């Protein structure tokens, strides 16, 4: 009995320790992208067609790019243009392509104490929230959302601080939950919001300002720098995402009957 257990143990260990690396493609992306559910629809046809298994590692934008800088992933899909450009300029990534954009919205309590409902100017809206010192929850984690928020405050000429401004240091979901608990304002990506809409009492108050557009870029990790990366697989994924078919899936992806992502790669 004991000998059998021992053999089983050794076999199990061997199976566990030797991971199959062939046929796997590592994609780092943001939690909001993963949570939107888009990838669950976009990736399976790609996997079926190519036989590759895509490992999606969803972390914050900063960490997603850091994984690329370490060579721990093969391709990355994020939405922070400035950071993406630096990623490529510093030689970590190659062949960046636009994929899609979604947008950010300002959500808040239905009572709207800062009176920003319907405003088309997001910068002015935030300035108003700051002036009224209305409760506002920030991502505070250097994510794409947080970067967008910071840029807006900068354009508004406001340095937000004080009890009304809470830096959560968490992902979009928990931040929306927190804003709901406090019945305060927050800047959210439409995708995460739509997924959580039924659970929170925070209507959309400001949307449509082009400054709130959130473009997504896909970048392959530089194979010259990291010879071990699955470059061909990465390029196949980029091809898929920017193909007519892939873009069609992106455009057809709806949450609560609403379109979430707007394809940018191919136009007719």
């Amino acid at each position, binding site marked *: 009995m004991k000998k059998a257990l021992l053999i089983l143990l050794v076999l199990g260990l061997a199976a566990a320790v030797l991971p199959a690396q062939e046929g796997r493609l590592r994609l780092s992306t943001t939690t909001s992208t993963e949570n939107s559910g888009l990838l669950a629809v976009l990736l399976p046809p790609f996997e079926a067609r190519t036989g590759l298994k895509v*490992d999606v590692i969803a972390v914050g934008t900063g960490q997603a790019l850091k994984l690329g800088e*370490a060579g721990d*992933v093969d391709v990355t899909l994020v939405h922070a243009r400035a950071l993406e450009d630096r990623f490529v300029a510093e030689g970590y990534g190659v062949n960046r392509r636009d994929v899609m954009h979604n947008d950010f919205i300002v959500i808040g309590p239905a009572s709207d104490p800062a009176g920003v409902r319907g405003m088309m100017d997001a910068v002015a809206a935030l300035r108003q929230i700051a002036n009224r010192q209305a409760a506002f929850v920030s991502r505070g984690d250097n994510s794409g959302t947080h970067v967008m928020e910071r840029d807006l405050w900068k354009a508004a000429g406001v340095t937000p601080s004080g009890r009304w401004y809470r830096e959560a240091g968490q992902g979009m979901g928990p931040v929306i939950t927190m804003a709901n608990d406090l019945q305060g304002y927050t800047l959210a990506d439409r995708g995460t919001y739509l997924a959580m809409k039924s659970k929170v009492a925070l209507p959309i108050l400001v949307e449509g300002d082009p400054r709130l557009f959130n473009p997504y870029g896909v970048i392959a990790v530089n194979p010259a720098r990291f010879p071990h990366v699955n470059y061909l697989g990465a390029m196949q994924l980029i091809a898929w995402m920017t193909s007519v078919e892939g873009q069609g899936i992106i455009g057809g992806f709806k949450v609560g009957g609403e379109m979430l992502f707007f394809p940018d790669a191919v136009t007719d």
Partner: protein
Amino acid sequence: MLGALAEAIRLLFTGDREVYFIAWTSLHLSLVSVAVASALSLPLGFLIALKSFRGKKQLIAFLNALMALPTVVVGLLVYSFISRAGPLGFLGILFTPSAIHLGQVILCLPLITSLVYSALSRLDRRLPETLVTLGARRTEVFRMTILEGRIAILSAVLSGFGRVVGEVGVAMMLGGNIRWYTRTLTTAIALETSKGEFELGLALGIILMAIAFAVNFTLHGVIRHER
């Protein structure tokens, strides 16, 4: 809470494929990690208990300190080693189950060693003397000591299991919470909670507790039968 319980039962009995897969991942990852850690801890704990050597006190203090490390810190430390940017990057085990195994072994090894050591040091001195006088060699003394102290040692192993099956820091950092691959019950709970899906998170938590209970129950039963 009741809603979560109902959800848990529904998930289990409607045979939701993904939940079963996640639960199975949690189970086999933890079991293998604990098995490897125990294989190292038992002889180590035995040596510490039965031999005196220089630096023994320092080693014990070091083990106790390791046990206090939060799982995220262990995850970070291992990550810095096995990332491609780190010294062991060439192994390519980051974001695979092997990385989780590595982190979890590091998590529970000091715990199990420390508990085995304290269980064995409480064992009667007469046991090793009796075994030696009857002609037992060192490996036999080790075997019989483990056998005679098996209840306490099982306790130690189960404590180790408890520590790793319920941890999220290592699994998340080193496994990446990759769907259908390295997503465990704990990382799934973290994910669902971050999405605001509290009920689903609780339901997964109940499943996790059920698994832990089942493992405890089974192993205790096996040991009792061996008498």
